């Protein structure tokens, strides 16, 4: 077990607590950049998919894991990001301007939508945001002149400083683009966590009463969380559009919203790792299942609802046995090895929690 002997405050503020962790994550990023030389283009495409889901997961994680506000409406924000990006590029903006702008516009829309939704808590907020997911479909159809309605749209080829990027013909370049966006989003997330706003998010999540008493403006903080979450989700949406190659009103359905929420629960709420672990499960599960099915009962046999069934079962098992998700399990395994042979079975047993002050107002 590594003991941190801290001598400066900087050790708690900087990105990595020690040299070893910095090296591990450095190696991981190097590996990610070297990946196209290690595996073939089909799998690069799959990894790109994982990263896009991870970005979307980071977006929802910021809202649900960090600020404690459930949302089943994030598919709508994926759609806003995707359509805004495509429309802006069609208007002649270069990708390098349109893409960040698409995220920012999604964020602003999210923050505005959040204002009436802020009075709702827990399950009621989730229900209200479901409406967003359902409405998005109709609104895309209604706004046909801009969105192409039912027939949908095809995103144009990305050009960054004269360099052409396309998902099907140049999967490696597209992979690098997604990787860079992923790293930027992760850095934003991490920076927020170590600054006052990130702590205010956690304060709002755990006790609104005392957060208020400490001078945190609850509504403004929640709206900010919503906005930032939607900004990241918007970027993921734009990338999803490129990844799919075509999209219409049905691409960003409520199923995507539900999958996103399940993904971060399976990955582990409230951690960056959780978003990535969850994305791996969501993106690889269909492939893994079909490979497994072909191996067991031969190809060509279709089992309707297999994916959904397995996915639902995984979710139930996680909620029952590992509410902290894959990241929680990962931490437990790591600590077991670090403390070997002194780890005890009940080390992670939850402490009894104490009575909360009655909710005011």
């Amino acid at each position, binding site marked *: 077990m590594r003991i941190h002997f801290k001598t400066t405050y900087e050790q708690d*503020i900087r990105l990595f607590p020690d040299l070893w962790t910095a090296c591990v994550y450095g190696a991981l990023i190097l590996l990610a950049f070297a990946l196209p030389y290690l595996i073939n283009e089909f799998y690069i495409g799959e990894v790109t998919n994982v990263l896009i889901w991870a970005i979307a997961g980071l977006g929802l994680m910021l809202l649900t894991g960090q600020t404690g506000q459930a949302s089943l409406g994030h598919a709508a924000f994926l759609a806003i990001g995707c359509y805004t990006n495509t429309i802006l590029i069609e208007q002649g903006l270069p990708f390098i301007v349109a893409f960040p702008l698409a995220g920012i516009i999604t964020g602003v829309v999210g923050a505005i939508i959040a204002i009436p939704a802020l009075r709702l808590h827990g399950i009621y907020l989730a229900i209200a945001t479901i409406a967003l997911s359902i409405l998005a479909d109709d609104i895309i159809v209604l706004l046909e002149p801009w969105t192409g309605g039912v027939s949908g749209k095809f995103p144009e080829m990305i050009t960054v400083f004269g360099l052409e990027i396309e998902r099907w013909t140049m999967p490696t370049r597209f992979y690098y683009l997604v990787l860079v966006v992923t790293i930027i989003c992760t850095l934003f997330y991490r920076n927020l966590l170590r600054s006052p706003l990130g702590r205010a998010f956690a304060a709002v999540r*755990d006790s609104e009463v*005392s957060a208020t*008493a*400490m001078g945190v403006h609850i509504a403004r903080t929640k709206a900010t969380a919503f906005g930032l979450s939607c900004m990241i989700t918007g970027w993921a949406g734009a990338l999803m559009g490129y990844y799919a190659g075509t999209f219409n009103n049905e691409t960003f359905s409520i199923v995507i919203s539900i999958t996103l929420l399940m993904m971060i629960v399976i990955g582990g709420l409230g951690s960056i790792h959780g978003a990535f672990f969850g994305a791996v499960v969501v993106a690889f599960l269909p492939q893994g299942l079909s490979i497994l099915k072909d191996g067991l009962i031969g190809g060509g046999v279709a089992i309707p609802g297999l994916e959904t069934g397995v996915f639902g079962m995984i979710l139930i098992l996680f909620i029952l046995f590992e509410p902290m998700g894959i990241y929680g399990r990962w931490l437990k395994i790591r600590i077991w090895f670090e403390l070997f042979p002194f780890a005890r079975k009940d080390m992670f047993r939850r402490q009894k929690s104490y009575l909360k002050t009655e909710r005011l107002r």
Partner: protein
Amino acid sequence: MSLLEIKNATLKFGGVVAVNDLSFSVEEGEVYAIVGPNGAGKSTVFNLISRFYEPFAGQFTFDGQNLLDRAPDEVADLGIARTFQNIELFEHATVLQNLLVGRHRHRKSTLIEELFFAPRVRAEEHRHREAVEEVIDFLDLQPYRNKMIAGLPYGVRKVVELGRALASGPRLLLLDEPASGLSVEETQDMRWWIDDIRKQMGITVLMVEHDMGLVSGVSDRVLALADGAKLAEGTPAEVQSNPAVIEAYLGAGAV
């Protein structure tokens, strides 16, 4: 002029009069205690000062400024910090993060700066941390710095909550039953801390407390409440020997 002045405060919940035409004032630099039987309206007074409840009538003045003009989250900006009767800490955060939330009212950085973790944010973080470390040293919280609240014993949580209030650098500290649920030694510690908070830090303390030992040990003046109205006010000894107070606690005929 008094630091905190409350005049004719009244609050009703339906037909129940929680606070009834209550007036009192807290002078700068004193420890002022509110005592009273359960349901006397002590915590309600705190929630009125924190602006969680809107009073029916009354004037609330803090340092010459009208408290009623402030939203609940702006009360902290004035320099009023508080603790809660049933500890309200941020459960899924470390002690250090909890104390740093106490510094929130001193936040100067903007959203954009924080997204990029600009040099100013870093500098501010160092300053917040220094202030928090002083509180940690003062309250002997060093062993718990990086522990999650969810795993801490009750007594420590109580101290962390006091620490979070202190970290905000308040002028007036509202302590809602600081000694409830604490052992004899912990209560003794709490008494020394309250003494030091007043003497070393120069912070005015307004507290609600049932432990009369603690109240008479640290407070300069005591207000006895019953059914939301003032029963008696004075030094601890005066209030304790007041026949009306004894009657409220023990029933008529006890004197």
